[in-house]
Each structure stands twice: as structure tokens, then as C-alpha cells.
């Protein structure tokens, strides 16, 4: 009996410690490091989260947003990686956290950062220039088959999401296109509007302005199902009127890019739990729903463990594809 009581007392003494650990709160201003330049998709993601956290007072400490987009985001990841165990630095990125180390010599390995949450997945579409002779993705593929290496496909950066998708399309539908890398998806959208390239694979938010103005048309979306119906974007079409690429005969099930957040390596469990909880709350606000709708992404919250498993699987998939292309950095 005495033993049991002793154990109980000991357990009771432990409890507050556990409670303190779970209730960890930031003690200093928190840095939101953006692994992209100002104005890009990742930047808007981070600033939207910032505005929601401020509005709903989800954190007592103020937030400082820092853009560290040098070297395609390498600057931001290296900065947070070198702040080992610092609970006041978070980096906002995409799949470049685990894809970039595969293709370029950078200063971190993908498992040196702690995944905190994925909050949304951005869709990819196949867009074509105004007055293009092809009216659907299947016609586009048929035409590309006739003239290998002639179809001009624009995208943001080399060996990055856009080129990866382009190579996947080539493999899946047996065509060969000419890939032209630009600095950003926005630049590729303007080149498409001017008719200097035939197609690009921009995210919805990157091309919506051009679509509205009749300077680019969506052919298909790389998703299992059509996008949710929203208000009409042009006079006749809305997002849900765009067929999936699979429907159109391009056998790619799905291609999406996560919007995710990382902490440095070696942070305490309680820290991770605090931020994971905070981002979950953010993802449940009406402002978040509005951001998702406006940028036509799909909202999907992923807890730390799920994200970790997702990254592992995706990294292996990427490694295989890059090996085929001869992109792996030694």
C-alpha cells in the first residue's frame, strides 16, 4: 500500500512537469522565415498565417516575417537549420525542403529540420496561350506528338516543381517539349499571355489574372477529381469546369505541392506540440478558408508525424525520377 502511495505521489509530482512541457509558450518574438522572395506563393502563405495568428491572438509573442529566398529558398532553410533547437524560428516552404538537396549542393539534408505541419496543397494546371490551335489537353498532346521538341513549355526555375511535372507529362504521354525556365511562375504567365510560349504548368493563383483577361486558358488540372465549384472566373467558366488531365488522356493521377512549415532540428516535444496545435487552429478559421478559396488550393492539415511520413515517401519518389533524368547531385 505504502509503495502504491509512493508511486502515486511520484506520479503526481511528475504531472505538473508534463503539463508545463505541453503548455510551452514562446518567450521571445517568433521569426517566420520565408524560403522565397517577397510576393511569391510561399510569401503570401506565410503572411496570411501571420495575419490570422495576429487577428485571433493565437500567440502572445509578436511575429517577424523574414524573406530569405536566395538560392531558390536555400538561404531560408540553411538559416533555420543552423539555429539548432531554437524554438523561435520557423521556416515556411514547399516540397523544396526535400527536393532541393537532391539536385543542388546546399547546406542541409531534408531530415535535419523538424516538420511541423502541412496546411494546404497547391494544384497544378496545364495552361495554354490565347488563340492556341488546340482546344483541349488531348489535342495539345496530339499536336506535340507530331512535332517533338517544338512545343514551348515555360515554368519557374530548373529542376523544380514545374520542370518535374513537365518531365512527368513527357513520360506519361510519350511527347517531347522544349522547357524554358523563368525566374517565377508570374513571369511564365506573362510570357504565355504574350504568346511567346505555348503552355505552362502554373498554380491557379499564378495564372488567374491572365485567365480572367483572356490571356491564357486552362486545359486540365493534375488532380484526382475536378476542383470545387466556386464563382465563375470568366463569363462562361469556373474552376470546376476544367477537366482533370486523366480525363483528357494524360495518365498522371495527381500532382500537388504542399505548403508546409518546419522548425530547426532538436527542438523539444512541447515546442512542436504548441506550433502544431497553433497551425491546426489557423487552418480552422474562416480567414484561412477564404485564402484557400481565393488561391484555389486544397486545404489539408497534416500533423507532424503524417507530414514526416509523407516527406519520406515523396523524397524517395523524387530521388527515383531525378536519377532517371540524371539530375541527382553527387
Amino acid at each position: 500500500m505504502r509503495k502504491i502511495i509512493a508511486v502515486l505521489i511520484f506520479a503526481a509530482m511528475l504531472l505538473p512537469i508534463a503539463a508545463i512541457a505541453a503548455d510551452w509558450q514562446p518567450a521571445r518574438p517568433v521569426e517566420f522565415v520565408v524560403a522565397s522572395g517577397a510576393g511569391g506563393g510561399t510569401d503570401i502563405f506565410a503572411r496570411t498565417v501571420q495575419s490570422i495568428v495576429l487577428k485571433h491572438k493565437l500567440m502572445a509573442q509578436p511575429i517577424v516575417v523574414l524573406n530569405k529566398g536566395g538560392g531558390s529558398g536555400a538561404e531560408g532553410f540553411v538559416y533555420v537549420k543552423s539555429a539548432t533547437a531554437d524554438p523561435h524560428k520557423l521556416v515556411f516552404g514547399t516540397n523544396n525542403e526535400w527536393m532541393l538537396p537532391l539536385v543542388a549542393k546546399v547546406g542541409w539534408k531534408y531530415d535535419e529540420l523538424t516538420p511541423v505541419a502541412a496546411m494546404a496543397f497547391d494544384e497544378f494546371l496545364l495552361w495554354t496561350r490565347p488563340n492556341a490551335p488546340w482546344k483541349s489537353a488531348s489535342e495539345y498532346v496530339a499536336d506535340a506528338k507530331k512535332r517533338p521538341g517544338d512545343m514551348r513549355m515555360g515554368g519557374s526555375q530548373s529542376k523544380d516543381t514545374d520542370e518535374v511535372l513537365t518531365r512527368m507529362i513527357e513520360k506519361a504521354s510519350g511527347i517531347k517539349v522544349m522547357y524554358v525556365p523563368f525566374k517565377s511562375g508570374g513571369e511564365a504567365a506573362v510570357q504565355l499571355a504574350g504568346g511567346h510560349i505555348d503552355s505552362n504548368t502554373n498554380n491557379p493563383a499564378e495564372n488567374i489574372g491572365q485567365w480572367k483577361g483572356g490571356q491564357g486558358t486552362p486545359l486540365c488540372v493534375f488532380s484526382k477529381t475536378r476542383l470545387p465549384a466556386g464563382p465563375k472566373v470568366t463569363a462562361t467558366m469556373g474552376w470546376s469546369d476544367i477537366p482533370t488531365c486523366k480525363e483528357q488522356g494524360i495518365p498522371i493521377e495527381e500532382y500537388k505541392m504542399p505548403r508546409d512549415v518546419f522548425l530547426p532540428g532538436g527542438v523539444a516535444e512541447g515546442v512542436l506540440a504548441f506550433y502544431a496545435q497553433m497551425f491546426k487552429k489557423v487552418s480552422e478559421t474562416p480567414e484561412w478558408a477564404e485564402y484557400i478559396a481565393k488561391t484555389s488550393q486544397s486545404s489539408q492539415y497534416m500533423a507532424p508525424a503524417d507530414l514526416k511520413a509523407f516527406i519520406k515517401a515523396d523524397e524517395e519518389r523524387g530521388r527515383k525520377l531525378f536519377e532517371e533524368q540524371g539530375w541527382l547531385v553527387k
Partner: protein
Amino acid sequence: MFENLPLLMNGFAIAVSPYNIMLMIVGVFLGILVGVLPGLGAPNGVTLLMPLTFGMNPVSAIILLTSMYWGALYGGSTTSILFNIPGEPSSVATTFDGYPMAKAGRATEALTTAFMSSGFGALFGVVMVTILSSWATGFALKFSPVEYFSVFMLAFGSFVAFGGGSPIKTVVSLGLGLAWAGIGMDTVSGSMRLTYGFTELSRGINLLVVVIGLYGIAELCQTMQESVGSMEPVASKLSPREVFRAALAMPRYWIALLRSACIGLWMGITPGGPTAATFMSYGVGRRFSKAGARFGTGHPEGLVSSEVADQAAGSAAMLPMLALGLPSSATAAVLLGGLMIWGVTPGPTLFAERPDFVWGLIASMYVSNLVCVIMALTTVPLFAAVLRVPFSITGPLIVIVCLVGAWTVGSNMTDIWMVLAFGAIGYFMSRLHYPVAPLVLAMVLGDRTEDAFRQSMILAKGSIWVFWSNPLAGTIITVALLCFALPGFTALWRLASRRR
């Protein structure tokens, strides 16, 4: 041409409310403040202010942020003139004549000339934006990498070819700039270049770090060497009457004003950006102005050339930003991010969909630039008085400001070491009479020129003749090549006439 007038009037009705005027004054004031501190600059200032605007309506938000941008452009000129430290890359060309003027005790005149020129450039830019809004966006859409490359070559050609000094030393300086611009991630191949395994170099070398080092620190070393023993402060006339005199002298430079405004407008719309515009305008001015030979020794016309082009390009660049979503400067990129958060999608339909926003912004540009000129001119005597402080006090302060500026660029210790290294490089370059300006120009444009060239080559499957495949690109590139060939021709001509 005048169909936009009612829209503009409507814009004035939106922009000119007491609340918005107050925002303009606050924005301009903060802008001048951050502009004066090198490194903090417009992009950082606007980023810091951004969270405050999330709750505002989009028109007021953009008025506040653009006012800050205009203010920072004025503030950036101030340090260029007084201390040879450009607060922004686009005010590098302002140092060429502004700083010699200040050194000769004409700081008040230089500051007044710069601010009046800025005001004129901005006004010209906004008027043109009002008139050309529908035409200009269609024109900018014609630009593929082929045309971009031609425009960049023209900027290089017009500055480098018309410059003085030894051609070989100019080429060396250009080459160094191009090499440094190539450090970091390469867009076209997607791999790291010239980093030699240093993680720190993977983000490339920031232009502001280079500029602060090459101008600010190097100039301090120079001053110390020259004035050992005689650390006398520079006397300059401070009376408001001096400000008036300089302002009234402006019409004398009407040719320079118009020429530079047109160059600025062209570079803003195409969009080559304000920094390229200032270099191009200065280069063209040096070649074609009667006073060209005296450029660089402290001639007001050189100052006019760079300041007018800077502001005209900055205002005109609002057009491609709104209508195409193409930012032509670092600050424009930040503003673009803001637009998305406020729920405004830039694109060709923005003008039709949100006339209140677009014309509210354009109308506010008229008013806020007026606010800028007034506020800047009233501070002239204050700023000029700084030069009366002995160098033994301002010198160390400038070092601190330079290093803090370098720190704010990326909160990174490496940047501070780099500023000091570039300071040493700049010092030795000027001792050995290597021009620094071509290096800066190469760093501004090198990366984009290279990208445009390689993109063109991919599109054309390696055929160089693509640059003459349409009249627009063909004309620009031919003029650019003629600019490069000009010094050679002139030399041959002289040789031939001497033989005779």
C-alpha cells in the same frame, strides 16, 4: 487619349480624403527616414509596414505603402549626395555628380536640384501612366526574352560606350561585376555556381552589400587619406533662399529633364527597372549634352539626368506591375505580395474590375509626390547642416550606419564581412583609376541579361539571328551594338583624319 480623365477624377475623389492624406504624410515621412538609412531601404521598410495594412481597405493600404516607397526614393538620394552612400541601388548614379557638389560646399543646391528633379520625373511618369495606361500594357506583352536581352544590351551599351576613362579598365570592371552577379543559384541550369562549397554564397551576393561597401566604406577610406591633418567640416550655405535659387534654376536644364524623363519612362514600361534607367540616362546625357564633358565633376545636369530617370521609371513601372503582375524592382515585388493579401489580383482585367483601386492609386501618386517634394525641400537645410559636423564625428557614425545597413539586408554576419571586403576593393579600384560604376551596372543587370540570352537561345534552338527576327528586337539590338562600336569608330575616324 482623354478617355481616362473622368476615371482619374474619380480616383482623386477616392484618394483625396483627410484619412488618405494623413496616410500619405505618414508614409512619406517614414519613407524618407528608411531611405536615409542605407540597407534598410524601401523594400525592407515596406515589408515591415505590411502587417499593419492587413486590416485596411486596399486603396488606403496601397496609398500608405507606395507613399513610403516614394519617400524612400527621395531619402536615398540624400545620403548619396551627402556621404556618397547610395541608400538604394537606383541612386548610385546620383552620387556621380551629387557627392562632388556637396564636397564643394554646394550641398543645398545639390539636394534641391535632386528633389526638384525627382518631383518632375515622378510627375512626368504619372501623367504618362494616366495617358498611356491601355497602350502600355499591350506593348509590354510584346516582350519575350529576346526583346528583354536587347533592352538590357542597350542599357549596357548606352552607359559603357559613352563613358570616359580607359576602355580596358572599364572592361575589367564590367567583367568582375558579371562574375559576381553569377554567384549562387542559376535559373537556367538549376544548379549552384561559383560557390566553392561555401553555403553562405549559395544565396548570391546582395547588390546593396556591394553598393554600401564600394561607395560608403571605400569613400571613407579615401576621405581619411586625403584629409589627414585637416578634418575641416565642409561649409555650405543653409539659407532657405539658397533652396529657392536652386529651384528657380531648374528650367535651365529643360532638355536634360525631358530627355531623362523619356528614358525613364521607356525603362519603366519595358520593364528594365529604375536602376538601369538611371545609368542609361546618365550615359546618354554625358554623350549628348553640351555639358557632358563636365559630368562627374559636380555638374547639376548629371544629377538631373539620374534623378529624373529614377523617378520616371519608378512611377511608370506601376503599369506593368498592375496590368501584368510583373514587378520591376524589389519594392514592387513586395507590393505585389500585398495586393494578393488584400484580395486584388493584378492582371489585364484589373483596370476594368477595380477602377476605384487602380485610379485611386494613380491619383494618389500625383498627391503623394507633391507631399514628397514639399517635405523633402523643407528638410534640405537640416540635412545639409549635417555636413557642418566635423568628420571625426560623422566618420565613425557613417561606419556604424553602413554596417547596420549591411546587417538589415539579410540579418547575416557574412554580409558585414563582405561590406568590409568590398570597401577595400572599392578603395583600391579608385586608387588605381578603375571605374566602379560599370561593376555596379553589371551586377544589376548581369544576371537578368544572362537569363534572357540563354532563354532566347533555348527558344530559338541556338540561332543568334533570333535577335533580328522582328522589327522591335532588331532595332533595339542594332542600336545597342552601334553604341558598343561607337568608341571604336570615333578612334578610327580620328586616326583617318589625322593621316589626311
